[in-house]
C-alpha cells in the first residue's frame, strides 16, 4: 500500500492521514454490533480532531502509527465479531 510505505519513510502527508481516517470509518461500518460500531466511529472522529493541531513531526508520526495499529486491531476484531453475531439486534437498530 503506497500510503503505508510512505508513512514508514517520514512524516505522513495530509492525503495519508485522510486515508487512515477513511479506512478506520470504513472498518467501523463492518462491525455487526451497534455499540462497537458507534464507539469506533466516535473514537476515530474524536481522536483525529484532538490531534488536528499537532505540528511536531515526531508526534505526528507516532500518532499516525498508533492510528495504523488501531486500524489493524479493528480489522481483526470486525472479522472475529462477525463470527459470533448475536441473533437479537440492538434496540437502536430496530425501526420504530
Amino acid at each position, binding site marked *: 500500500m503506497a500510503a503505508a510505505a510512505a508513512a514508514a519513510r517520514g512524516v505522513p502527508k*495530509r*492525503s495519508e492521514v*485522510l*486515508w487512515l*481516517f*477513511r479506512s478506520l*470509518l*470504513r472498518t467501523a*461500518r463492518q462491525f455487526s454490533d451497534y455499540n462497537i460500531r458507534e464507539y469506533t466511529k466516535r473514537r476515530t*472522529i474524536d481522536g*483525529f*480532531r484532538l490531534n*488536528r493541531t499537532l505540528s511536531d513531526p515526531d508526534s505526528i508520526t507516532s500518532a499516525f502509527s498508533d492510528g495504523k495499529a488501531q486500524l489493524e486491531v479493528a480489522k481483526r476484531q470486525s472479522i472475529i465479531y462477525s463470527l459470533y453475531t448475536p441473533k437479537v439486534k440492538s434496540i437502536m437498530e430496530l425501526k420504530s
Partner: protein
Amino acid sequence: MAAVGSALLKHLRLRVQVQAVPRNPSYALSFSAIRRRFFSEDVRGSFLDKSEVADRVISVVKNFQKVTPNANFQSDLGLDSLDTVEIVMALEEEFGFEIPDNEADKINSINLAVDFIASHPQAK
C-alpha cells in the same frame, strides 16, 4: 424520601375516609403540593416541550442562507477536511454504495456530490 412517601400514603388514605381538607397541619404542605402538580394547568402550560423546540430550531438553522446547492464545504460552510470525509461517508451510507478514495477526495461541494451520485448506477 421514605417519610414523604409514607406521609403521602397516609394522607391519601385519610382523604378516602374523611373527604374533606385534612385536619392535620403537618400534611398540609404535601396536599397542596399534590394539588399544584396534578390539578392545576397554569403551572404546566407555560413552557414549550423541549424536543419540539429543538426540532423547530434545527429546521430554522437548516434553512439558513449558506446551505445552497452551490455551497462548497470548505469555503462556504467552514468545514475542514476531516468534516468533508465524514460527510462523504455519511453520503455513502445514505445512498448505499461505496465511493472509491480517489473520487471521494474530489467531492468538495454539494454540487459535485450531487453530480457524482446522480451519475453512479449503483446509488439506491
